């Protein structure tokens, strides 16, 4: 990435929203200690959650939250792409389709009829898909929600022209750096840490809870092998399928995870 900082013009930042819970954009507002600094270093040109004022594109850095679920979204994401020099997707919705991608496993008409009396009023696609399925993406930041320091690292590294320090290895590495005792080994608590992308700082195990995969798959996930250990820890086939089918359900190999014939 090339640095965009120059002495006179501040780079323009835009924040876009598609189907999502708003939590990832809120993460930016949650950077209480740094928010005014961020505003000092970049021009917040488009960020509806924070400001009614908007500045026309092109934008140097676009943060995109949310997944593509409507025909209108498909058009809009291409417009966003055209106006953005550097596009970063933020969160599980934008990088993996989010929880709403559970629709991809079922019949959308049925879902509509469960929730709405007159589904025909609504315009929606059969699938919820990540941004990278539609346009080129410069960087994907994972998590449901994203981690505050990682977001700052992405913005900071963009300004510095550095590759962000956002490693793609397992949650286990962070878990051990944090000094947490492995709860899968010491307690038999099912944990997705070994196949999950680092970034949260191994939060759940530090709270005596198995990781539930909210950062999605790590760089080389061996889901089949972990499933054996999960079954050993007492999960049944239904549990295994459900635990992988949450916020990153549509990303491979979580998508196909399950207990196969040969498993114990």
């Amino acid at each position, binding site marked *: 990435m090339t640095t965009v900082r120059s002495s006179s013009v501040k780079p323009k930042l835009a924040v876009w929203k598609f189907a*999502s819970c708003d939590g990832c954009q809120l993460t930016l507002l949650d950077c209480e200690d740094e928010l005014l600094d961020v505003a000092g270093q970049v021009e917040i040109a488009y960020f509806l959650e924070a400001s009614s004022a908007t500045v026309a594109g092109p934008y140097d850095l676009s943060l995109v939250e949310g997944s593509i679920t409507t025909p209108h979204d498909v058009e809009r994401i291409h417009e966003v792409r055209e106006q953005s020099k550097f596009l970063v997707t933020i969160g599980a919705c934008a990088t993996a389709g989010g929880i709403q991608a559970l629709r991809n496993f079922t019949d959308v008409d049925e879902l509509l009829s469960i929730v*709405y009396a007159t589904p025909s009023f609504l315009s929606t696609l059969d699938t919820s898909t990540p941004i990278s399925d539609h346009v080129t993406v410069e960087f994907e930041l994972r998590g449901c929600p994203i981690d505050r320091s990682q977001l700052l690292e992405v913005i900071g590294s963009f300004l510095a022209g550095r590759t962000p320090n956002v490693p793609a290895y397992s949650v286990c590495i962070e878990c051990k750096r944090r000094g947490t005792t492995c709860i899968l080994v010491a307690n038999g608590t099912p944990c997705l840490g070994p196949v999950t992308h680092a970034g949260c700082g191994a*939060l759940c195990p530090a709270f005596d809870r198995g990781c539930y995969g909210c950062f999605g798959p790590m760089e080389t996930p061996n889901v089949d092998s972990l499933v054996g250990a999960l079954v050993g820890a007492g999960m049944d086939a239904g549990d295994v399928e459900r635990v992988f089918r949450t916020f990153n359900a549509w990303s491979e190999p979580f998508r196909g995870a399950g207990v196969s014939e040969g498993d114990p």
Partner: protein
Amino acid sequence: MSHKARPQRSLTTEALARVEGEGAMRVEIHDGRVERVELNIYEPPRFFEAFLRGRRFSEPPDITARICGICPVAYQMSACRAVEDALGMEVSGQLRELRRLLYCGEWIESHILHIHFLHLPDFFGLDSAIELAGVNRPAVERALELKKIGNELLELIGGRAIHPINVKVGGFYKVPTRRRLLSFRPVLERARDLAAEVVALVSGLDFPDLQVEHEFVALRHPSEYAILEGRIVSDRGIDITEQEFPDHFAEHQVEHSTALHSRVRARGAYMVGPLARYSLNFDRLTPVAAQAAAEAGLGPECRNPFQSIVVRAVETLDVCEVALGIVDAYDEPDHPSVEAEVGAGVGHGATEAPRGLLYHRYQLDADGLITDAVITPPTSQNQAAVEDDLVRFVEANIAEEDDDVLRRGAEVVIRNHDPCISCATHFLDLTVVRS
């Protein structure tokens, strides 16, 4: 969009800023009368209620948190309480207190965000808190500090501020030590002082004269300013248990929005949120908050939506007080959670999200799998009331020729309500058509 001297005027806002989530509004004016107002929520449907079918009873707290990143704890709490109701579990004592404490964190964070980032800039005719920092930096710095404390409280109990990981049906995965909570006391004291300053700041604002007549609905608890539980009451005589909610309230779909609208079966539009909560529970405020409300010029009832900013500030102060009380009385429970006994059942749970009443209902089968789920968020409950307010606002300002002025005003009306669009589970652009 805006033309001079035309028989028909149309006013559109493409996307409504500074509400969490996005939506659009359409107003039609014919012969100087407001014919129609539609709050068009175009948040794409995310089908939570459908996805919940077939999931285990333990999953709603994590899954429904993802409905709204602004008030995930509210979703987690309503979900937990509904499932626990279905399974006949009781979560009491210190575990209940810890839940309230966690909820206090979310109220502080969410209220301060709403007051300073979304609402306050309107009073100064500004576009954002960042701009506000230009004219009143101390106020924004104070807000950031207070908001951060809210987030820290969320992290302390919940593990993280957005989508906390430490909440489960039955309680928590891990509870903090007494030492750890007490070490947070000075921070909460600081929050209380800051919250008092916020009350002072917002009570000095100029409020346009507007009184709403909607039926107010909120939770009410025998001894607390209800957050986590209580009976569902209204100023027109509703006084029911959570379990009776479906008998009295109904959601229905409107063509212009992906958010379902909720109405009182007997009457129609009603209102939840700070104004309703405050007016129904004024007598339950902590003495410090009650005093501050009085000094801020609020009576026991508040029906001016602009003044909701003051109510939020008072509520923020109140939860700081409540949190201090919880911390002082904290005793580490022996078990971080109550064990669930799986079985079939139907359960209801209602709690007070920062934006108002949030109701969940789950039906479980014998294996503890969900067969049906219903979620009624505050936004869908207020939708009809917001539209009513908009009609009245536009009617009162019909002489205003400048569409931009009108548009800004209408947006303010909407922000008074703080409709959290993304949380309209099932779900803004302003168009004014004049003729």
